[in-house]
């Protein structure tokens, strides 16, 4: 139909009356248009009669009815033989419209269609050749089985699933930070499809996998579905309580939305503010389901399974016990040696330690580089800065130079080991808001930490608790390096493992200052009680050797040699043995890998859920108990759980309800999705909405038959694929038929196989595959085709990166919210925040520009040419044939070859390959 006709159609439909003045030729088009829309009108009428146009929602809706094992239609009349039952259903409907199936398509077209459908990749020329030549009656089935067994099958169908569940690898919203480890869920989905996991199990796992016994890694990861969409980090962190509550309600609506739409095909989320307009879902029921998921929160968590965790915990505990025993023994012997040495000890002459920027030696006459004064009850006495109680501290004059890389060091004896929060030494900004300090016992009892403003540069340490007795002097030091790494030391030895956190701060001359005995100005519980002998600030990051040298040079602590010299030979052996034991055990502990972490969501035990009037957090109403939808009358919507039931119980009950074979929705919804991805349109054309506002099935009996077979097969998705792709309906030609097109332009009755443009991922993957560049590595962290500009928020700049890592399948592309990849975008890659049951398909100049000029496409064209040359050699006509075989699965015909040959000779084979990658035939499956 031409432009003119369409325009008239617009007028007819948009005016809704005859007042628009039509020209005679327009009237003709209008009449034709109205004939074409007759099926639609019939459908409107049926729908209006069913009550969806405004009357109260009904539970008699078709999709709430039990699945009926339909009678298979007798097809002997329209056609003698059919491939399977599907064709019976299709033929019956076609016959009613005066239509029939198209003839079977040719083998080349068929294997290309099937290979893309099942694996998202094109068949290789060899695969095409083999199938074309295979005389066996089972030739096609062999291909089907080969493809279903291919690991690429799971990659292909995982991509479809991830669209539906709005899987994203960044937070979205303001900061849009990366989710480095969300990919565990993507890999779980790939594995599930590849192993043909029972869909019943697949469902159960994705709502409650983390609490299904025994808890496994897969189980924990599977429930990522609940939270794998965007998350408003800033909204959760803000000061305003009401706004924070709204943010949380938005999160839960998203979770409820994805569960309802994905598994039930119901937009349960629409009932957040008022009972559902079209479906029998009450406000109350929305909040009962909210109660099911109220304990689910965004975030990362460890994903070790219970068995793994038990083993790991037991091992860590036993090692820690051993470590503690060994350390205690070492310390006991050292104390012994130290006390023996103490009596007649003299200062040992050691090499001088590193020179600080400034230091205080209260036990020596040398003046501090920076003057300072005591405050509160602090006093300098007997060569010690004495800090007897809260409020006592020492403050220096402002720094005389900017300090960036640095080392803080103090020689301190603590009054007691129960205190917490005080600092031996602190470097703070003039207003006290920014600081780095050596803090004792603040977050972990009896341990030293690198205290910092807002804990930005603070991490808890796996280090021994302090054992120094009152009066025993201990050296503590913290090194801050330019690479943001931070290392702690005690008595010249590493204290815990170095780590990276926050950003190295600059403390500026004229403002910043040193505090001794106080964590920072304005802080809560900032006081240290005890004595400080010496303190140093270095304007550089000391090496571990420097710190050890400083320890030795101080003469304050007994050098190790002196301590040991005061032990008996037996004691020394015992000391060395326990020291070696402690070091070995520590090494073993350090070697235990950290628990793998994934963005799988965290759990809390929520307060009982209250219904919110009009969805407003300011108008909470009655408390509700967890439950499900009463519209599905075959099942009880009651969970018999109290409103304060453990959150795990709630989701387990929901999983049972969801996956109950009597629940008529999940099997229908999933069977329809599989159909949708094979034919480009579902039997229900609104795959996420089986409610009254959604579409009716074109073939309700067929849908039920598929759902029934699906359940009977043990919820095997591969069984559905087999049934569908071996049908004659699937294997028919896609050639246009004008007569049929006039009757059913949309091909909703499937009188031909509907041609379909490849999705963005398939276009890109196909280019990689045919040019020999595809890196088939499966799973693991995603590749990142962008640079990140960091403010507090991430900004993603798409970059055409080169290398095998970036030649993995597009499934492994890190799909972030705020930075799109223009070429993928132009091919309708959906916004990752949107639950997308079906993708749009557009054809635009920007898409053409992308294929024409994008650097990736140029490279792939060149590689395709090289690939063709490799197989075909130097002869142009053979190379052209090879390129056609790779790209389109077929050789060029005579006129194509005649056209391509001079072009190739004149401009190179790259030109032909570029044209192939841009061709309609390449980006479409037929």
């Amino acid at each position, binding site marked *: *139909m031409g432009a003119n006709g369409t325009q008239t*159609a*617009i007028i007819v439909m948009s005016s809704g009356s005859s007042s628009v003045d039509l020209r005679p030729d327009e009237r003709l088009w209008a009449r034709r248009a109205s004939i074409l*829309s007759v099926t*639609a009108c019939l*459908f409107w009428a049926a*729908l209006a009669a069913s009550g*969806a*146009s405004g009357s109260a929602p009904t539970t008699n809706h078709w999709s709430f009815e039990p699945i009926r094992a339909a009678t298979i239609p007798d097809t002997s009349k329209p056609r003698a033989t059919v491939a399977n039952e599907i064709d019976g259903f299709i033929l019956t409907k076609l016959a009613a419209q005066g239509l029939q199936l198209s003839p079977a398509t040719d083998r080349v077209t068929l294997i290309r269609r099937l290979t893309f459908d099942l694996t998202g990749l094109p068949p290789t020329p060899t695969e095409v050749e083999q199938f074309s030549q295979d005389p066996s009656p089972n030739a096609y089935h062999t291909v089907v089985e080969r493809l279903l067994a291919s690991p690429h099958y799971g990659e292909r169908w995982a991509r479809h699933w991830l669209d539906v569940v709005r899987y994203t690898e960044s937070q*979205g*919203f*303001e900061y*849009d930070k990366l989710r480095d480890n969300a990919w565990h869920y993507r890999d779980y989905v790939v594995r599930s499809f590849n192993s043909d996991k029972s869909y019943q199990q697949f469902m159960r796992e994705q709502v409650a996998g983390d609490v299904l016994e025994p808890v496994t890694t897969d189980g924990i990861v599977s429930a990522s579905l609940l939270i794998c969409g*965007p998350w*408003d980090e800033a909204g959760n962190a*803000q*000061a305003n309580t*009401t*706004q924070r509550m709204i943010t949380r309600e938005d999160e839960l609506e998203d979770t409820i939305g994805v569960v309802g*739409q994905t598994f039930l095909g*119901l*937009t349960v989320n*629409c009932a957040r503010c008022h009972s559902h307009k*079209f479906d029998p879902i009450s406000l109350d029921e929305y909040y009962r389901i909210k109660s099911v998921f109220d304990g689910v929160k965004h975030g990362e968590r460890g994903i070790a399974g219970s068995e793994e965790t038990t083993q790991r915990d037991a091992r860590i505990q036993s090692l820690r016990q051993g470590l503690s025993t060994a350390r205690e023994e070492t310390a006991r012997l050292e104390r012994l040696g130290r006390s023996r040495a103490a009596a007649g000890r003299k200062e040992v002459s050691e090499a001088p330690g590193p020179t600080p920027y400034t230091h205080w030696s209260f036990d020596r006459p040398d003046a501090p580089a920076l003057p300072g004064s005591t405050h509160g009850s602090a006093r300098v006495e007997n060569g010690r800065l004495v800090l007897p109680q809260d409020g006592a501290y020492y403050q220096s004059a402002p720094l005389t130079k900017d300090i960036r890389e640095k080392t803080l060091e103090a020689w301190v004896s603590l009054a007691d080991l129960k205190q917490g929060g005080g600092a031996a030494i602190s470097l703070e900004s003039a207003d006290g808001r920014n600081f780095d300090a050596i803090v004792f016992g603040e977050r972990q009892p009896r341990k030293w930490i690198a205290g910092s403003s807002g804990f930005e540069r603070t991490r808890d340490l796996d280090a021994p608790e302090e054992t120094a007795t009152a009066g025993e002097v201990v050296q503590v030091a913290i090194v801050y390096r330019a690479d943001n790494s931070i290392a702690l030391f005690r008595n010249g030895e590493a204290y815990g493992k170095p780590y990276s956190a926050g950003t190295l701060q600059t403390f500026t001359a004229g403002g910043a200052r040193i505090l001794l005995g106080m964590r920072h100005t304005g802080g809560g519980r900032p006081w240290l009680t005890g004595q400080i002998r010496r303190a140093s600030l270095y304007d550089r990051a000391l090496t571990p050797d420097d710190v050890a040298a400083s320890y030795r040079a101080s003469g304050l602590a007994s050098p190790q040699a002196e301590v040991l010299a005061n032990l008996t030979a037996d004691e020394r052996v015992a000391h060395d043995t326990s020291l070696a034991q402690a070091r070995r055990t520590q090494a073993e502990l350090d070697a235990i890998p950290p628990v793998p972490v994934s963005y799988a969501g965290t759990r809390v035990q929520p307060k009982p859920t209250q219904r919110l009037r009009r969805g407003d957090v300011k108008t909470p109403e009655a408390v509700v108990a967890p439950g499900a939808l009463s519209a599905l009358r075959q099942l009880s919507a009651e969970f018999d759980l109290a409103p304060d039931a453990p959150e795990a119980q709630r989701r387990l009950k929901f999983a049972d309800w969801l996956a109950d074979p009597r629940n008529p929705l999940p099997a229908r919804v999933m069977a329809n999705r599989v159909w949708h991805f094979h*034919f480009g*349109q579902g039997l229900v054309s*609104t795959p996420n*909405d089986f409610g009254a506002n*959604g*579409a009716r099935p074109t073939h309700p009996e067929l849908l039920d038959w598929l759902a029934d077979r699906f359940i009977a097969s043990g919820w095997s998705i591969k069984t559905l694929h087999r049934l569908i792709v071996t049908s004659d309906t699937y294997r028919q030609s896609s050639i246009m038929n004008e007569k049929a097109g006039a009757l059913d332009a949309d091909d*909703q009755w499937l009188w031909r196989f*509907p*041609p*379909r*443009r490849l999705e963005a991922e398939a276009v890109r993957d196909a280019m990689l595959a045919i040019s020999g560049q595809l890196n088939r590595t499966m799973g693991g962290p995603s590749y990142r085709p962008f640079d990140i500009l960091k*403010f507090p928020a991430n900004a993603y700049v798409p970059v055409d990166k080169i290398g095998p890592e970036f030649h993995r399948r597009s499934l492994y592309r890190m799909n972030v*919210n*705020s930075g799109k990849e*223009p070429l993928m975008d132009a091919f309708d890659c959906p*916004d990752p*925040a949107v639950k*997308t*049951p*079906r993708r*749009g*398909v557009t*054809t*635009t*100049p*920007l*898409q*053409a520009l992308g294929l024409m*000029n994008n650097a990736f496409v*140029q490279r792939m064209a060149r590689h395709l040419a090289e690939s063709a040359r490799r197989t075909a050699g130097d002869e142009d006509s053979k190379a052209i044939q090879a390129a056609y075989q790779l790209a389109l699965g077929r050789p060029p015909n005579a006129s*194509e070859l005649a056209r391509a040959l001079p072009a190739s000779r004149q*401009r190179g084979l790259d*030109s032909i390959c*570029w044209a192939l990658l841009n061709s*309609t035939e390449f980006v*479409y499956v037929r």
Partner: protein
Amino acid sequence: MSDNSNSLRTSTTSAASAQPPLLSRRHFLWNTCGGLGGIALAWILDRERATASANLASASSSSARLAHFTPKAKRIVQVFCCGGVSHLDTFDYKPQLERLDGKTLEGKGENLGFFGQPGRVMKSVYDFRQQGQSGSWVSSLLPNLANCVDDLCFIHSMYAKSNNHTPATFQMNSGFTLNGFPSMGAWLSYGLGSVTDNLPAFVVLPDPRGLMAGGSINWTSGFLPANYQGVPFRTNAREPVLDLSTPAHIPPQNRQSDMDLLASMNRDFAEANAGDSAFAARLRSYELAARMQVSIPEATDLDSENEATKRLYGLNDESNRGFARNCLMARRLLERGVRFVQIFNGGAFGSPRINWDGHENLRENHNTQAATMDKPVAGLIQDLKQRGMLEDTLFVWNTEFGRSPSTQGIGSPGRDHHPTAFTCFMAGAGLKKGFHHGTTDDVGYFVDQNKVIIPDFHATILHLLGLDHTKLTYYHNGINRRLTDVHGELVSPILT
């Protein structure tokens, strides 16, 4: 049919729930055009209809058919000032703040700010004067916009849903505070199509200093088909649009021969599969692409503008950091048929601040930002006016929320976010001139009269472009979605 994103049976349900004609029109179009590639065809047909008329002026009849009713505006340009412009220091003069300066603000309920550190009342850091015939109050911050007031139509009673930048920015752009909803520009492209083949319908000009938070989410097509999303022009780069130019290593004559070869391949394929409109649409998309390769560089090349025009926008002045170029480019794009140009003033959040987020020191921050914005935007308004384009162009100036009357923290000279009252203005087609709508209380904390929520603002913009916001809908996952959700009242007092 496979490629239709909104289907036949979807449209039937739409009709059953009294769907608007526009949606029916679109669905109908998809349903009756040979199915395959319906959207593609729709895209192209929108343009063919428009190009049938030689220019914009004579395209009115077809535009009117497209719209729900006769539009006042044929195109729209929006200046989005990111970060939250203080209404109290620009257009909403509050003498009471001078009296309360340094005092604690009482009786306003829960603190609305983002950081929750209410300080003391701070009077405007600028002097206010009445300007123009209309006597509109404008602060000394914006001397150039002060000269435009008699053409402007102010709304002082704006009200945003969120006190947090990105959700508020999303709401201003898409009506929703969440990710994933189509931007207004996408809705307009969907509703009205384009008027030219040679340029995208919806062009975004990000601040040359960088993208605002949320980046491309701000011009996403959400669940609408991807062709309706905004096309960001890289106004600093060699190529205004990524992949626009033929790669340097390919001689132009070779590319032309390659394009001819490709066209013959695609033509053969379309002919062998006659009746599938999508295959024809693909052929056409390459013709249009080739045209864009010429028209986009032409539209974005400012060299042909005369010196007076460049001066009007402040193009030669470094202090606006390239923003003036975007304003001038916007006018050129509008002239050449772009439906919606969205210009961002301000980039991402962080330090140093490159947007209007004056938490620490309002004066310092707004001085810097105004130096980028005032003259170029005033220049754009004046230029549109002197060319007669303001007659049928809608000009919109907005921010995502205002700033608090109290300081952020005691003794600080900065202001926190403030969602419950702020000022935006529009100008041009269908709007009263030198007009002020809505008032706030004596300290600019809450709206006093005529509250305008974002859906009202959107409904009014759609109205001026000839669209009924209740009828511009798209079915997605169970809901017939609207830009205005279930809200939106026309702000009729501002209309002529």
